[in-house]
């Protein structure tokens, strides 16, 4: 028998289950299925060149007449789901009907026999627009006098109720009142206040979004897609949008899939691809171009934060007042209310008096959706920067002020929630040691100046519904786990496999994963808010335990022992407390033939099926009568934490920034697979490095200026510090209700990167950036402003 220790895979860096197929080019991504369909149709979309315009007329006759064009879709067609809601197209990518509200919005779609024919057809479409005023700057979009992002009468006609009292573009608001802020500011010895802005950015995963939709003979559809949430997002939306498609007629498969980072959380390509398949009764493929990925798939939401902090002389922060505005881009009346972003300003430090007013506004820019971190990288940019200002005034060091005010395990935060897992203290100390924050940088006569900085971060996990898992025990004794979670590269199916092998105390080679096919695998919602390890992980454990329970019962019955007397390990049943083998699991499955059918028990070739369902407790309402203070004992689920330290060089002549050395630490809860956690740290750090100093949307005349991978500057191997200068550590605080005490971790990693770099820039050249990204141009401007001030 095997040693139990050897089958405990928790905390071990077991090889990824998908590594071989990915290293050999055998892994099939959705687009690789195209070659199976010799009669594929291709969808291409004509997009608005204007930030805001009324559609006066659309003439598609020439496009329709082009040989090879099968169908043309425009917003006024009656079979477009929700076509009476003009703004639904922002989320679901369908052609606009009345007006376009950002440059990049779909106007006409074509399905044709080839990509070139579809593209040619789009050039034959004539659209007449009437220009309308637009607003792309979120600060200009606020207020009652702002230029409306949409025409109010259309909004009312669509049932949205028209403009809000706070202003034509205000989508929603969230307010929190905790303690007495005014009194606390009176009692404070030091008060600091500043305005911060974090920019607009695209996740830019290398695999573009797309789907292949196969029309079925029963009138249904099979969707092969890299979209997220086969059950929770795609199938659910398609069923809602197309009433003729009943549950049995929609099958969604997510094959091997490139990164998403939140970008694919809404079904952006599937609705149109399904419409085309239903119209043409053929298989259609719809793949976004790289330009469309930038102009027509969601960006993050930029955040403006005005933050004020009050502290006592000893460094205790007693008052926090903030006004925060999320820019939701071109969409009207969504879930945006500022709550997600402002959560970053509640979850790291324990401040007894908090006054938070947060809003969301729309603008005529690319619509916004989650981007790894859900707005917290954008909001905590303000907190971490202002903390440095405060520390300087108090003559404290950046580590001390953070440790002093950090929430401790068991304490209650501003929402009124009790925090159950926080490993931030050791994360912070480790980065301060790692980059030797106490040792000043050596300076020389050249244009490069050097500095160091650290910052901290936290990120909530939103309870986002349930996950289910099936656990099959095959009659050869091997295990198969069926789940529908997204696998976008983070390695979660490898981590789930380790959990299952550990539950069964079995060699991991005998555990197989089957994933994300709504015809086969059970419900899961979608991969967001770092929930999969936690939610799907718990479901897998429950499913395994259910299957083990059934095996114990079967084994007990076989040998006349009670279920409680049986334990399962290494594919065999043993008597509890002894090493006495009762029966091999495989022998529980009885062979049968045509004449000798088994009347009871387990049959060879037919697996035992264990079922697991896990749902985190939902949030307790924070809105409505009696909740005017916005507080609740349960707003979120749990929190992940991270700290970051950097040594940077700033060029005084050009404003350019280089990251020379860095250290990132993660409180991941108990890590299931440390190498996978490291991979998430590395990727998160570099993604954040990019949006901290380089990559962002730039607008001119209402249009994105840089929708390509040349001008949208993503980090390469050359912007990443050398291996020896790239340090990281996993410093877990176990999560009591996490699977094997694990929690998600991949979002908090990003958050402290920008502020730590800003802190280092201040040390290097004495200017404090307030806008992110800290581009070379913006830093040079700060340097010039400072020189001009000094000259005065």
């Amino acid at each position, binding site marked *: 028998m095997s040693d139990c220790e050897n089958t405990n895979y928790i905390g071990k860096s077991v090889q990824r289950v998908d590594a071989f197929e990915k290293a050999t080019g055998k892994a099939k991504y959705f*687009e690789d299925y*195209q*070659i199976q369909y*010799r*009669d*594929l149709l*291709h969808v291409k979309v004509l997009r608005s060149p204007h930030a805001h315009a009324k559609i006066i007329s659309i003439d598609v006759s020439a496009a329709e007449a082009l040989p090879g064009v099968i169908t043309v879709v425009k917003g006024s067609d009656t079979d477009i789901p929700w076509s009476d809601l003009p703004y639904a197209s922002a989320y679901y990518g369908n052609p606009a009907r009345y007006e376009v509200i950002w440059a990049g919005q779909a106007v006409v779609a074509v399905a044709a*026999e*080839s*990509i*070139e024919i579809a*593209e*040619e057809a789009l*050039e034959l479409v004539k659209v007449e627009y009437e220009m309308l005023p637009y607003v792309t700057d979120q600060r200009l979009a606020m207020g009652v006098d702002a230029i409306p992002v949409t025409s109010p009468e259309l909004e009312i006609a669509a049932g949205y109720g028209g403009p809000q009292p706070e202003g034509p573009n205000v989508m929603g608001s969230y307010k929190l009142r905790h303690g007495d802020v005014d009194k606390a500011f009176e009692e404070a010895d030091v008060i600091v206040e500043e305005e911060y802005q974090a920019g607009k950015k695209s996740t830019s995963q290398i695999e573009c979004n797309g789907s292949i939709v196969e029309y079925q003979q029963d009138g249904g559809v099979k969707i092969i897609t890299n979209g997220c949430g086969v059950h929770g997002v795609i199938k659910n939306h398609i069923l809602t949008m197309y009433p003729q498609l009943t549950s049995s007629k929609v099958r969604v498969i997510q094959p091997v899939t490139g990164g998403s980072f939140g970008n694919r959380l809404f079904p952006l390509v599937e609705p149109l691809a399904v419409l085309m398949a239903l119209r043409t009764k053929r298989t259609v*493929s719809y*793949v976004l171009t790289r330009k469309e990925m930038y102009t027509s798939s969601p960006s993050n939401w930029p955040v403006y934060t005005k933050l004020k902090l009050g502290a006592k002389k000893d460094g205790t922060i007693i008052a926090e007042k903030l006004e925060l505005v999320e820019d939701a881009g071109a969409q009207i009346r969504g879930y945006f209310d500022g709550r997600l972003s402002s959560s970053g300003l509640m979850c790291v430090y324990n401040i007894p008096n908090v006054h938070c007013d947060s809003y969301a506004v729309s603008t005529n820019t690319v619509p916004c959706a989650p981007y790894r971190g859900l707005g917290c990288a954008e909001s905590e940019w303000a907190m971490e920067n202002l903390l440095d200002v405060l520390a300087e005034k108090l003559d404290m060091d950046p580590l001390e002020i953070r440790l002093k005010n950090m929430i401790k395990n068991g304490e209650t935060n501003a929402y009124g929630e009790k925090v159950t897992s926080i490993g931030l203290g050791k994360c912070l100390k480790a980065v301060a040691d790692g980059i030797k924050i106490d040792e000043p940088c050596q300076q020389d006569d050249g244009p490069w100046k050097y500095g160091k900085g650290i910052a901290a971060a936290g990120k909530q996990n939103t309870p986002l519904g349930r996950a289910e898992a099936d656990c099959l025990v095959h009659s050869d004794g091997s295990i198969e786990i069926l789940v529908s979670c997204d696998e976008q590269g983070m390695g979660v199916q490898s981590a789930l496999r380790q959990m299952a092998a550990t539950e069964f105390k079995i060699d991991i080679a005998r555990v197989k994963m089957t994933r994300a096919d709504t015809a086969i695998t059970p419900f899961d919602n979608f991969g967001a808010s770092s929930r999969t390890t936690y939610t799907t992980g718990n479901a897998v454990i429950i499913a395994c335990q259910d299957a083990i329970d059934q095996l114990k019962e079967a084994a007990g019955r076989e040998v006349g022992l009670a279920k409680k007397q049986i334990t399962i390990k290494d594919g065999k049943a043993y008597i509890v407390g002894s090493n006495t083998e009762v029966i091999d699991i495989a022998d529980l499955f009885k062979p049968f033939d045509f004449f000798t059918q088994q009347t009871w028990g387990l049959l060879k070739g037919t697996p035992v099926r264990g079922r697991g369902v896990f749902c985190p407790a939902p949030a307790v309402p924070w809105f409505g009568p009696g909740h005017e203070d916005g507080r609740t004992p349960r707003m979120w689920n749990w929190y992940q934490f991270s700290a970051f330290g950097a040594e940077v060089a700033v060029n005084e*002549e*050009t404003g*350019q920034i280089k990251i020379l050395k860095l250290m990132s630490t993660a409180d991941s809860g108990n890590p299931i697979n440390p190498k996978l956690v490291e991979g998430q740290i590395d990727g998160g750090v570099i993604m954040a490095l990019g949006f901290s100093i*380089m990559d962002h949307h*730039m607008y*001119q005349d209402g249009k994105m*200026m*840089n929708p390509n991978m*040349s*001008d949208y*500057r993503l*980090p*390469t191997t*050359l*912007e990443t510090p050398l291996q020896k200068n790239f340090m990281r550590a996993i410093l877990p605080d176990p999560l009591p209700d996490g699977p094997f005490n694990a929690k998600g971790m991949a979002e908090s990693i990003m958050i402290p990167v920008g502020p730590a770099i800003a802190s280092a820039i201040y040390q290097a050249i004495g200017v404090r950036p307030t806008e992110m990204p800290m*581009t*070379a*141009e913006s830093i*040079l401007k700060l340097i010039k402003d400072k020189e001009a001030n000094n000259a005065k």
Partner: protein
Amino acid sequence: MLGVQKMKFNSYHEPETIEECIQILDEQGADAKILAGGTDLVIRMRSRVFKLKAVVSLNAIPELSEVTLKEDGLYIGAMARLMDVSKLELLTDAWEIVKTGAGNVSSMQVRNIATLGGNTCNASPSADTVPSLVVSGAIANIIGKNGPRSVLLEDFFTGPGKTVLAKDEILVSFKLPNYADKTGAVYKKYSIRGDTDIAIIGVAGKITLNAQGEVVDVKIALGGVAPTVMRVPKAEAFLTGKKLTDQLIEEAAVIASESCTPITDARATKEYRTEMVRVWVRHVLTDAAQEAQKN
């Protein structure tokens, strides 16, 4: 049909001699484009910026890739791959600047395919190879229906994406004239992500000193700040005949920044480009003067 994104041109020609090539170009007229490495052309065809009837590949004409050292200078074939140019051992001392420019173009994968002639004929204002070639006094050797002709490279460009080449003409080679003693030449590309990015600006400078250390000849070429790569005659005249000091170099840099006419695009604002010209002309001239003293 499969997910092939075709570009819908009718004919693909791969002549094996220059004469054959010119004949094809003459027949095809303005609807044809010349394919060198393709790293720019193919992308622009796919994005439907270019809609062509014919593509004429130069890849089967071996003599276009030849590199020859002659009495009057170094001849580099237009089809020489940028990777090979960036490692060309014949490019020594004041010619090394051509290596630098070629090595600054994009990544390994692109340099392996893209050519010196292609990067030039593309006529991008921010092409990395061009400022170096211009200050080196490179001459473009052209051939067409009416025979060969030579054009000073700085006169080769007529606007963004435009050159003096007639529709029946191809660029055959570059001639780098021999350089004088005590000559130093430096190219610096300024961009945010090194070679990955298209240059925000590129600055090439070449300085020749006499025995007294006075400037006998100076050439400054700027990329990315005007419709074509531009020289800065005012700054050159200012420095000629003088013994260089930090102060003089700074003044020349200011003149250069005042002479250029950059635009704002996704890579930088015009104000930033102007300021960067000042910074990088100073660095380039300082380094070139040092090189000149060494050589």
